[in-house]
Every structure is written in structure tokens, then in C-alpha cells.
């Protein structure tokens, strides 16, 4: 790795802590961001010459704070900027500052920064965009690429989100235990949104979008370092790692989705599976189950099965039932139906999802699953109808193509049936 790559990694690594501390000083997101930008520019000039500081975050906080104070003063008096040499010897102040940045303080700083991004008044897409911009430090252009929108549209979206956040009041004093728990839960949900944004990327979208998964995992590890004894955060990190481990097998060469049963399990990432299972193992020790842990446990059962036929569907059915009880949702029941179909056959699964028809009428996966179950029961015409509905609701060309493949097979089956009649 060359100097520049090392510095960039150091800046990215230090960013959440530095921006969070600057936000506490200036209580304004734009000022904090500009201060960090200024400090980063000086780091790019100074670090290659003087070597990297022991504590990049402390250096960036101090330089960023000075730069922002200078800028404010300059705006008032049009004073020239002090030359870089005057900013040089930071070692002493840096050490003193690092001393004061004790872990409790910066824990709440970073949590506040993350929490601001997932303010309940912000729609999900704005939460994600804001977190990627402010916490992860992705450029507006990168985020725009990930969301497949133009740069100016994304710029507007982020500006609007910031304005809303500025108007809303997020208290700056250290939160009490209940507020802290609430913030952690909101941040966890936002991180999972970022992950799913990346996970839903398929062949027709781009690399930038897929990178969101890695970014979400990085944010989850950050949150877990701040709250190391929270089993649900362990569960969230485990869930994302176990899902992400399957990325290389999830899409074929044409970018089409490959179902779990058909995936080449040799392509699964063993390192991520290992870390996911280790985190889940740690979480379960706390005996405080929650939705992320249950979902991670389901993903773990898939990860542990060397072949699809080794999958413990009975346990998966049980875990989905547990999840249904924790957070009742038709989508959870729909997922459970897949396990029920494996255990007790397609008719039982069809019966389970029948009551969901109204609530999931506009949901792609409902019609896809229903079509597949009908197909297994040789109810071709009904299957075709379900698949046609699914295609109309597909969220991406890859999803549509996947259903079309089913329809094609149906057509072939019918044609062969006709032939045998003739």
C-alpha cells in the first residue's frame, strides 16, 4: 500500500470519531464536516512529510477545530490563514487531547452522529444517504451512483436531509440509559437498511451499490466496539456477515439471481461465515434473544449446511415461528412458508400463506413464492397467473428474469403435455 492509500484508510477510519467530536464542539453538521475536510486536506500535505500521527483521530479533531475557528474569525476580520508551519508541532496538544477523549465521551459522540442520521422524521432513503455521506464519508457522486440517481438529485436529497436534521433538536448532553438504548436500536435499523440497499443490488446495478454491504458491516463493527456487550448488535453484525458471505454465489455470470438451493457453496466466504458464527455464539451466551439474533441464527443454519439437503428446516421453521412471535409480519410468515414447504410439503405452505393474500397483494415475493408452490402442486394455470403478477411487481430486471425462467419452464412443460396428447 502506498502512502496515499494508507492516509486515505487512516482518514476513513478516523472519520466517525473526528466528525462526531467536531459536531459536539460546533453543534452544526455543515461546520463539523467542513472542519473535517480542512483537517483532511492538511493531513494529506503534512503526513507524507512528517509521518502519520500516533492518533489520527485526535490530530484531525484538533486541526479541524482550529481550522473552523480560524475560518469563523477570517469571515469576521478577513485575516489571512496562518501558515502550515505554525500548525506544525501538535504532538503535545495531541497527547493531551487524546487523554481527554476518553472512551465514554466519544462513544456518545459517535452514537449521536449516527443517531442524527436516522432521525425518525427522515424517510429511509434520506437516512441512508446522510449516513453514507456524514459517517462513511462517501462522496455525493459515489452515493448517487449507488442509488442510480443523478449527482444533483442526490446533492438535493442530502441537503434536504441536513436541513430537516438541523430543524429537529437532538440533545447534546450525554443520553440517559433509556435514550441510549433507543438510539442504539434506531442506528442498528439504519445500518441494516444500508446493508439491504447494497444486498438488493444485482447484475443490472453497479459495484458502488454492492459496496454498501461492506460499509454497513463496517458501521456495525463500529457500533459493536462502542457497545461490546449488546447481543442484538452482535446479532446484526452476524446476520449481515452470514448473508454477505453468500454474495459470490448469489449471482451467476449474467448477473441473474441464484436461489439458495442452487448456489455453489464452495463460493461462500468462509472467513465471513466464521466471524458471523463467532459473533452469534457470543450473542447467544447472553440469553437475551431478539429479532437480529433469530435472523442470524436462521442464516447460520444455512451457512452450516454443506449441501442444501443437510439444511435443518425444522429448526428454521421453529426460528421463523419465534420471529413471528417477536415481530408479527406477513413477510416473516411468507419466509416461514418456504421452510414449511420443505418440511410438510407445498400444500401446507400454501395454506399458511393463504391469509396473507390481501396484505401482500402488492409484494413481488409473495406471488413468486405462491407461484413456485402451485407449480410443485402441478397447478400450472394458477402458477402462471401468480408468476405474471410477480413479474408486474418485480423491483429489478434480475427479479423479473428469474420469474420469467419459471414461466418458460411452464411453457415447455405445457408444450410437452400437448405433444403427448397428439
Amino acid at each position, binding site marked *: *500500500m502506498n502512502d496515499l*492509500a*494508507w492516509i*486515505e*484508510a*487512516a482518514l*476513513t*477510519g*478516523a472519520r*466517525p*470519531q473526528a466528525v462526531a467530536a467536531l459536531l459536539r464542539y460546533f453543534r452544526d453538521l455543515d461546520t463539523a464536516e467542513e472542519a473535517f475536510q480542512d483537517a483532511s486536506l492538511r493531513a494529506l500535505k503534512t503526513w507524507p512529510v512528517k509521518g*502519520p500521527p*500516533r*492518533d*489520527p483521530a485526535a490530530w484531525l479533531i484538533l486541526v479541524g477545530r482550529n481550522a473552523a475557528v480560524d475560518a469563523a474569525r477570517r469571515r469576521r476580520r478577513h485575516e489571512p490563514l496562518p501558515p502550515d508551519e505554525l500548525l506544525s508541532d501538535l504532538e503535545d496538544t495531541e497527547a493531551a487531547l*487524546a487523554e481527554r477523549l476518553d*472512551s465514554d465521551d466519544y462513544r456518545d459522540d459517535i452514537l449521536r452522529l449516527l443517531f442524527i442520521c436516522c432521525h425518525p422524521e427522515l424517510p429511509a432513503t434520506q437516512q441512508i444517504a446522510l449516513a453514507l455521506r456524514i459517517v462513511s464519508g462517501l462522496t455525493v457522486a459515489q452515493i448517487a451512483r449507488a442509488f442510480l440517481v443523478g449527482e444533483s438529485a442526490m446533492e438535493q436529497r442530502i441537503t434536504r436531509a441536513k436541513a430537516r436534521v438541523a430543524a429537529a433538536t437532538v440533545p447534546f448532553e450525554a443520553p440517559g440509559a433509556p435514550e441510549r438504548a433507543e438510539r442504539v436500536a434506531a442506528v442498528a435499523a439504519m445500518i441494516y437498511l444500508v446493508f439491504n440497499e447494497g444486498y438488493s443490488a444485482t447484475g443490472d446495478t453497479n459495484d458502488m451499490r454492492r459496496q454498501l454491504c*461492506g460499509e454497513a458491516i*463496517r458501521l456495525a*463493527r*463500529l457500533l*459493536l*466496539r462502542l457497545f*461490546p*456487550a449488546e447481543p442484538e448488535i*452482535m446479532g446484526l*453484525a452476524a446476520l449481515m456477515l452470514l448473508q454477505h458471505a453468500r454474495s459470490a454465489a448469489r449471482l451467476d455470470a449474467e448477473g441473474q439471481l441464484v436461489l439458495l438451493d442452487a448456489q455453489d457453496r464452495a463460493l461462500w466466504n*468462509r*472467513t465471513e*461465515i*466464521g*466471524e458471523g*458464527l*463467532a*459473533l452469534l*455464539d*457470543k450473542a447467544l*451466551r447472553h440469553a437475551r434473544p431478539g429479532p437480529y439474533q433469530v435472523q442470524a441464527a436462521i442464516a*447460520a443454519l444455512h*451457512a*452450516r449446511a454443506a449441501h442444501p439437503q443437510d439444511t435443518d428446516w425444522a429448526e428454521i421453521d421453529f426460528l421463523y415461528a419465534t420471529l413471528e412471535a417477536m415481530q408479527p409480519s406477513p413477510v416473516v410468515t411468507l419466509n416461514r412458508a418456504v421452510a414449511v414447504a420443505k418440511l410438510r410439503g407445498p400444500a401446507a405452505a400454501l395454506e399458511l400463506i393463504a391469509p396473507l393474500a390481501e396484505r401482500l397483494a402488492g409484494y413481488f415475493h409473495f406471488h413468486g413464492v405462491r407461484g413456485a408452490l402451485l407449480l410443485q402442486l402441478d397447478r400450472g394455470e394458477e402458477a402462471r397467473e401468480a408468476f405474471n403478477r410477480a413479474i408486474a411487481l418485480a423491483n429489478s430486471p434480475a427479479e423479473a428474469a428469474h420469474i420469467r425462467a419459471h414461466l418458460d419452464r411452464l411453457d415447455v412443460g405445457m408444450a410437452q403435455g400437448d405433444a403427448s396428447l397428439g
Partner: protein
Amino acid sequence: MLYAVLCYHREDVVGAWSKAEDDAVMAKLAVVQDRLAKAGRLGPVARLMPTTAATTLRKDSDPPLVLDGPFAETKEQLLGFYVIECASLEAALETVRELARANPGGAYEVRPIAVFHPSHLPDRAGVAPE
């Protein structure tokens, strides 16, 4: 003399490496490791999972306390280790300088080994806990 080389680095920095950057660092380290292995000087090598996967048993209380996370909340964390055979501290430092050129940033702690039990384990890194 056997030396342990303990690898410390800022976890948030290493965690910010892209996959390509990580792979590049590992490839450069592999070159140094290969040379040591061919010279019969390389013992076990381990890269540890992130500290978020760590659990600490504090045994200064009875019963011992099990805590989530690494032993120490330091800025630079223990991220891996090597065992190498070297004639002297000077030789050990020479080898560690090579590793440092392949993977700059952070620190290597070089510590002579007092007791060493060679491994009887097959490579099961990252394999599921039962």
C-alpha cells in the same frame, strides 16, 4: 531463539482497507513468509478476527468474570502474530523490518518465547464453533 512477533495496528484503519488493498498487503506479507518458511524459520502465523469477536475472561475475581470485547481498550489492537526462529534480536528485527515494509503502519512487538508447544491442530481457521 524463538520469537513471537505480535502485530498491533489501529483496527479502524485496517477495517477501512478495501478488499483489494487488504489482498495486496497479504500478498506482500506472503512473500516474506515464504522466504522464512523455506529457510525453516517460520512457526505458526495467525491473523485474528476483529476485536468485536473477542471475549475476555477476567480471572482476578472468583468466579472469573466473562466480558465481551478485547482485554484492553487500546487505540492499537493485537490483530495477529507470528512465531519465527532467529539467531539474535538483531536478526529478529531485520525480519520484522521486512514485514513492516510489506505492511506499514501500527507496530510489531518482538518478544522471545519462553515455552513453546508445537501445534497439533489442523488448519481450522474460521470454522464454525459447534
